[in-house]
Structures are given as C-alpha cells and as structure tokens.
C-alpha cells in the first residue's frame, strides 16, 4: 500500500544489517565491542546467503560461527592478561 | 485489518506462554551460567530488578521457552502442524544441553505452543502469525526499556513464588 514497504525484503534487510555491523566494527574502540558487532555482522551475512538460496553454504556458515568467535575471545582474554601483568610489574619496578 | 488482529492475538498468546513457563521453571531464581549473572547485575545497576535481570540474562545465554516458542512455530509453518513441533522440541533439547542447561523449559515451551497452534488453527490463525507474534513479544521484553521490563518480571515472579534470594 505504501511505496517504501515494497523495498523491505530479506535482501535489503540483510544488507542494512551488514552495513551497520561494519560501521560498528570501525567506529567502536574496545575489542569486546568489536566482537559483539562481529556477531551482528554474521547474522546479516547468513541472511544474505539465504536470500540467494544457497542453503548448504548457509548451513556451513551457521555452524562455523561460534568457532570463529570463541577463537577470537581466547586471543583477547589472553592478551588482556599479559598486558595487565606487564603493567603491574612495571609499577612494582618503579616503586622498588 | 483481519491480519493485524490475528497478529495481536498471536502475540498475546505467545507472550503469556513463554513468560509463564520460564518463570515456572525457575529462570528468575538463579543464574544458570556465569554470563547471566553479569547481565543481571548490569540491569540492577541501571535501576531494574535483580530477578528480572537474571531472567533476561538466562534468555540470552541459553535457548529457553522463548526459543522453543519461536522455533516450534517456525517448524510448524514449514513442516506441518503436529510433526514440526516435535522435531523442534528435540532440536531445542540438544541445543540446551550444549549450553549447559538441563533443558526443561525449552522442550515444555515447544510442546505447549504446538498445542496452542493446533487449537488456534480452528479459528483461522495460522502458524505464520505466531512467528511474527513471538518476535513482537520478545521485543517487549528485551528491546524497549530494560528496567521497566525487569520490574514487571519481578512482580510476576514474586506472585508465583520464584523470586530470587541472592542480593
């Protein structure tokens, strides 16, 4: 009934979500915020694949989602531990 | 006009379904995993209720009756009315066990929404309306205003005797 309502289908919604996720990854500063926006981007990515009806590719992409996020989170938490330990040892060195 | 009334009725039915079953299965009582604890404390710090915060955190961290409602209605829409709900129930059970949760809430929600869809198909409300209704219902809990929603959940939990004992 409205002309702009015909524009909204799975393809345009997925493209919008992808653009928002990419903008979030670029704009936000902290690494965990970037990981959250990456999880949003994966939703748009799977929607984009499904809208072209490559269903088997979408299945594989959906299964490999949490694996990539868990690998990134392991790297981030390990890096954070190392940096905190280094800062603490530097302060102790300044005092002593 | 008829479509909008169907969507509203389906949204109200699925809202009561998942809130009552999740509260009855003890989601506001204690956080099942550690991430739910973090989210609940954050909602409390922003001026909400702790039991409602645990409820929202548990929904984020494992597929509960809300996921059972959405996936069972989607499976009923694509596969067929009684069989799709049963297949969705078993898949939700496996997903629950993967997320370190016993899995009572998800399967109970999936089975009850299958019965509700089967009853509602006699008055002309198909399963597709329940998908849209469930998305609208989850937006009222998770997407509009978290402190107000958590206070509402806290009142419901206190009335059903499932309020949290942690502080």
């Amino acid at each position, binding site marked *: 009934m409205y002309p702009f309502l015909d524009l909204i289908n799975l393809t345009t919604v997925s493209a919008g979500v992808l653009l928002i996720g990419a903008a979030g990854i670029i704009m936000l500063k902290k690494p965990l915020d970037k990981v959250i926006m990456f999880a949003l981007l994966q939703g748009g990515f799977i929607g984009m694949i499904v809208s072209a009806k490559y269903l088997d590719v979408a299945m594989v992409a959906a299964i490999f989602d949490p694996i990539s996020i868990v690998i990134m989170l392991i790297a981030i938490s390990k890096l954070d531990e190392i940096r905190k330990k280094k800062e603490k040892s530097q302060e102790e060195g300044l005092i002593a | 006009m008829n479509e909008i009334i169907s969507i509203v009725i389906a949204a109200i039915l699925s809202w009561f379904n998942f809130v009552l079953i999740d509260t009855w299965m*003890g989601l506001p009582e204690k956080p099942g995993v550690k991430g739910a604890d973090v989210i609940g404390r954050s909602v409390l710090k922003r001026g909400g209720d702790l039991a409602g915060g645990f409820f929202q955190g548990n929904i984020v961290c494992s597929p509960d009756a809300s996921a059972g409602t959405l996936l069972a209605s989607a499976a009923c829409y694509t596969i067929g009315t*009684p*069989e799709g709900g*049963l297949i969705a129930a*078993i898949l939700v059970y496996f997903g629950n066990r993967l997320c370190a949760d016993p899995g*009572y809430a998800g399967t109970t929600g999936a089975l009850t929404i299958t019965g509700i869809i089967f009853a509602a198909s006699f008055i002309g409300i198909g399963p597709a309306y329940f998908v849209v209704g469930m998305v609208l219902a989850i937006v009222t809990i998770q997407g509009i205003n978290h402190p107000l929603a958590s206070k509402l959940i806290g009142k419901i939990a206190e009335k059903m005797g499932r309020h949290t004992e942690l502080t």
Partner: protein
Amino acid sequence: MIIHANVLFTISSYALAVASAVIVGLVLRLPILPERPIRHSWTISIIFPTSVLALGFTAIVFKLGYEGLLVAAVVGVTTAIFAKYLLERILPKPQTEES
C-alpha cells in the same frame, strides 16, 4: 467432526513408540521421575527426556518416509537404549558448577 482412519493410525503409532520406550526404560532400570526439585536436576529419567526424544525421533522417521507400527516400536526401543547408554557420553553434564 470426522476422524479419518489415517489420523487414528498416526496417533496410535506415536502412542506405541512412547509405550515401547517406557517399557524398555523400565527394563533397563531408568528412574521414573528426577529427584526434587525437578527443575534443577540433571538426572536422565523416563518421563523426561526419554518420552520427548521418542516423540521427536518418531516424527523425524515418519517425515523421512518410513511409516507403520513396526517402525514406531523399533524407534521406541532404540531411543530407550540411546538414552540409557549413549546420551551421557554425547552430551556430558558440565563439570564445574559455576555460581
């Protein structure tokens, strides 16, 4: 309301699947109900999840094209054996109970 013979046949085959799963579970000495409080326990019992698993597996096998009473009974027996011996090994209980 007219109930066709087809619908009656399907309902009876689901009931047969659940019944055979319950009987084989009783023979294998699964507990009937989990211990109280039910909503926090991890015990595998007959009511939950063996009956639900039997219903789901029967629906999957029927949707794949194999129908009949004998198929339902075989699925029920297989589900009970799966829940007794294999389910703890595939999906283990989490080790560390965290807060």
